[in-house]
């Protein structure tokens, strides 16, 4: 049942121009940046030969590209997640789900999975660019996989937060604005922590940047994975609760 809801969500996304526009814009922006990184690599290549343990193609092109794409994903994800529940709430189609033999958790998980499937497609399309380098050179596939995992975890957290915001508001735009604000907050929250120069501060622990930067560069800490899993779980549970509460009180 979760899968049915997810598929419907994905289909509706691709039936609207929004998904295609987002995919197109992402590709153009990333391709531009990608070319920039390649050019930078060529200009540095001569110097790199003389350095011991010099950073390779993966470090100089793939990692910065992933770094850049995570910012773009942060910007576009509220646009996708804003409609998940608020639109259904607004146009009344949520009543179809609520009157069907489907539990709240199935509805929420279906929505979450639908959005996640969309972003998996986005990430796969993004990854085609660095993979095209394989025609000319070798990539560090370990670092590449770590970067992909980092993107996926990042995006899943964006979706979970966006889904919760979408369950709170009947207006998609409000949900988008709130998601955007909170995502930025989670992004920069460690600035307070790092200015105090203490690496293990509480704010560092909350920050998404702190937990994703290393992974995008190829270092996977299990603590970072657990952070993202907990983040997802928390907001999915909150969404389920919110949907349940909607039935109970107004």
């Amino acid at each position, binding site marked *: 049942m979760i899968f049915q809801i997810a598929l419907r969500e994905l289909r*509706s996304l691709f039936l609207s121009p929004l998904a295609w526009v987002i995919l197109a814009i992402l590709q153009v922006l990333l391709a531009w940046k990608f070319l920039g990184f390649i050019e930078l690599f060529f200009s540095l290549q001569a110097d790199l030969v003389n350095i011991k343990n010099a950073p390779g193609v993966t470090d100089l092109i793939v990692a910065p590209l992933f770094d850049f794409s995570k910012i773009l994903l942060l910007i576009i994800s509220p646009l996708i997640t804003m409609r998940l529940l608020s639109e259904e709430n607004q146009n009344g*189609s949520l*009543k179809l789900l609520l009157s069907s*033999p489907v*539990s709240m958790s199935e509805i929420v998980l279906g929505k979450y999975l639908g959005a996640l499937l969309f972003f998996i497609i986005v990430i796969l399309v993004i990854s085609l660019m660095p993979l095209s380098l394989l025609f000319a050179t070798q990539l560090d596939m370990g670092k590449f996989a770590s970067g992909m995992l980092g993107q996926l975890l990042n995006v899943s957290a964006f979706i979970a937060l966006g889904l919760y915001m979408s369950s709170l508001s009947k207006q998609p735009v409000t949900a988008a604005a709130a998601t955007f604000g909170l995502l930025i907050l989670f992004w920069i929250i460690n600035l307070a922590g790092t200015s105090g120069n203490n690496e293990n501060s509480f704010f560092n622990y909350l920050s998404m940047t702190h937990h994703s930067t290393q992974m995008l560069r190829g270092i996977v800490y299990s603590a970072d994975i657990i952070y993202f899993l907990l983040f997802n779980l928390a907001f999915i549970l909150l969404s389920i609760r919110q949907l349940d509460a909607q*039935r109970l009180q107004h």
Partner: protein
Amino acid sequence: MSIPLIQARQLHRYYADTHAVNDVNIELQQGEILGLLGPNGAGKSSCMQMICGVLAPSSGEILINGIDLLDQPHKAKQQIGYLPDKPPLYPELTVDEYLNYAVRLRRVDKKNLKDFRELAKHRCGLQSHGGRLIANLSKGYQQRVGIAQAIIHQPDIIILDEPTVGLDPIQIHEIRKLVTQLGEHHGVILSTHILPEVQAVCNRVQMIHQGRSVFNQSIDELQKNNPVKIHLQHSVKPEQLLQLKGIEHIESLSDNQFLLHGEELQSTLADISQHCVNNNWGLLEISLQQNSLEQMFLQLTTSEQAS
């Protein structure tokens, strides 16, 4: 006696401080079409939403086919088809895609999916619209798609919230016909504020006003007491009509037009006309009035407001 399809007992529902539904009991038997009547904001929709599990009651008990809706929501909801006041459609899907989704959500056996879909389309007159986008359909057809999703899994109970709002007279007629057909095999609850609609399709009517159930009677019983209107050529004193059998009181509309009240007057229509002819009153018109429901409705809704 078999278990009623729906037994909703002592439903209460608060919205903040408003007591929107106050101690309402609803019962529905197999093969019955129940009309829920009430002015706007009376609590009809809230009652229906509670029965469908869309809204949780503040207190009360709802049994669907003997299954408690709160204890076993999945099993209970499988037997309900619900059309909200605004059809729950996805405009970007085609009719077929939408109905496929709706039937899967109801956990219908995979091998029946297509048959169920085609039957629902056939019943709602949507056979040639399968490939059309819902967004491009007219309001009437969108309403039909809404009804199709409510009956697609062939539930025992069909709940329709104002199914004929915004439709043209032909469509209204067709939808009433459909509801009557559905009532033969399923139990149907229908909410409306169009009184003739209730008389046309329902077996029983329940009126809700300011959150309370104020009236609950079968249509047959209700029509037993319909008044008879007579229009005479000559003016007659009302007392002269009182001699007639079965007439309890008389309402004068003018010197020569009267409303006769009494029990089961439709069986005495012939006697009344005979009496008028015998007295040479010049009978111009004699008819059984159908508006007792309207009077009842106005009486119940305005008297409570005054008190």
